[in-house]
């Protein structure tokens, strides 16, 4: 079983097409929508978690790209500037995915990018602006 989190950017012409439905039918994938947004310029942004057979996620990605969807892995989207982070812990209380948590021993804030769903709550909450969106 493979699990992948992807950030999909849909051009205007694709916004009204049932692309995600096809991922399920063609590639036998389960999906979880983490974020969905249509921009003022009528482009679509979807953050999806896909799970299915190992090869299927890769094939699904290729299919999306062939349609003209811009595909990015999610883990690259939020980054922490280690030189700014003071390990205060404010972000930990707000992270809905448990990607930011405090290490019991060192009391340092650990950031697990794989669990991050890019909700961006930490970005505004970080008092020293250490969390940044990587576009």
């Amino acid at each position, binding site marked *: 079983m493979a699990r992948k989190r992807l950030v999909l950017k849909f051009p205007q012409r694709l916004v009204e097409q049932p692309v995600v439905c096809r991922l399920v039918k063609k590639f036998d994938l389960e999906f979880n929508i983490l974020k969905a947004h249509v921009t003022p310029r009528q482009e679509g942004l979807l953050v999806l978690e896909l799970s299915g057979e190992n090869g299927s996620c890769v094939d699904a990605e290729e299919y999306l790209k062939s349609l003209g969807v811009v595909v990015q892995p999610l883990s690259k989207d939020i980054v922490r500037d280690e030189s700014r982070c003071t390990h205060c812990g404010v972000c930990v209380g707000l992270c809905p995915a448990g990607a930011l948590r*405090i290490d019991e021993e060192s009391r340092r804030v650990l950031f697990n990018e794989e669990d991050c769903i890019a909700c961006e709550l930490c970005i505004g909450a970080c008092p020293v602006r250490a969390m940044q969106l990587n576009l």
Partner: protein
Amino acid sequence: MPKTISEINERIRKRQAVVVTAEEIIDIVDEKGIDAAAKEVDVVTTGTFGPMCSSGAYFNIGHSKPRIKLGGGHVRLNAVPAYAGFAAVDLYVGATAIPDDDPRNKVFPGEFSYGGGHVIQDLVGGKDIVLEATAYGTDCYPRKRLRTLISIRDLNEAVLFNPRNVYQNYNIAVNLSDKVIYTYMGALKPNLGNANYCSAGQLSPLLNDPHYKTIGIGTRMFLGGGVGYVAWQGTQHNPTVKRKPNGVPEAPAGTLALIGDLKGMSPDWLVGTSFRGYGVTLTVGVGIPIPILDETICKFTSVRDEELSAKIVDYSNAYPNCIPETLGEATYKQLKSGKITVNGKEVTTAPLSSYPRAREIASTLKDWIRKGDFLLSEPVAPIPGAESGLTFKPLKERPVEEQ
């Protein structure tokens, strides 16, 4: 036989002083007992690194040619207003000052991305700052405008002077309303969505000397990465707060006003900070050494997180409206576990004050003392304790009569 600071300093000079942090003393007392620990240990170092709004710095920029009198004029540092109500070239910049054109909370919650706290961090870090000033001009100070780059190297004095730091035992903040609120304790989610606390707990300076027996005016310490001193009690100092049997106040109590040479400090330990919807502040690193003069003082420093508790306060209604009721207490051990129970509900907790950085401060101060680079100072006057009867008063508004 009680020790004196003089004797301890002698041992420090000879590099024979036994120095431990406020965490290490807990284990030593557990292992050997108070009496043996008090005999063996000379100094316990404490530390904290948290946002402290009543902070700022004053400087003397030196005279221009021809001279300008900034006092009574208007001065901005990187567009942040500084206070110019002193002599010709003396200025003070406060941590929470923000530029005139900062949108504040017009589009709520405001970002407050740059202000006094950031100016101080930039200055300490050696960066160039734009100073712009207008003055009304006098015969002896004829100049009316000044626009120049300054850096900390160019300044005569650059002094960190914080009217209120190291609040003894701050609140735990929660939100009982049904909307998110933005406070100096961070963003608080509705319906007890989260609980934020701000203290270094068992490492915290004033929780290790709760009655201010050793910390007084003139106490030398680690401040902002350099050396600082206690200048006075801090504003809102409230020693008469109810205390637990171990002497630790149950609610916010003592505070200290701190002073030190900014030129010896570091941008790692004076960090400009932004709280969305609230404003700008400065995160300050403070570490105070406690001389172990007798068993009583030793006992106070061995206090641990499970023996320290803070009050849970609703910041949606009770706090803004000065309603004294609280939702109970939680210990720092419970807070650090990640969850506490409030009104029967399990609430996620988060700190605002960095515990790993507090550890680093206590450890750094320990090194300074062990190497003989840092002597303890004898306070020249005490900070008022509970016996003084000093109480923090609210504002009593009185109408202003029209003439």
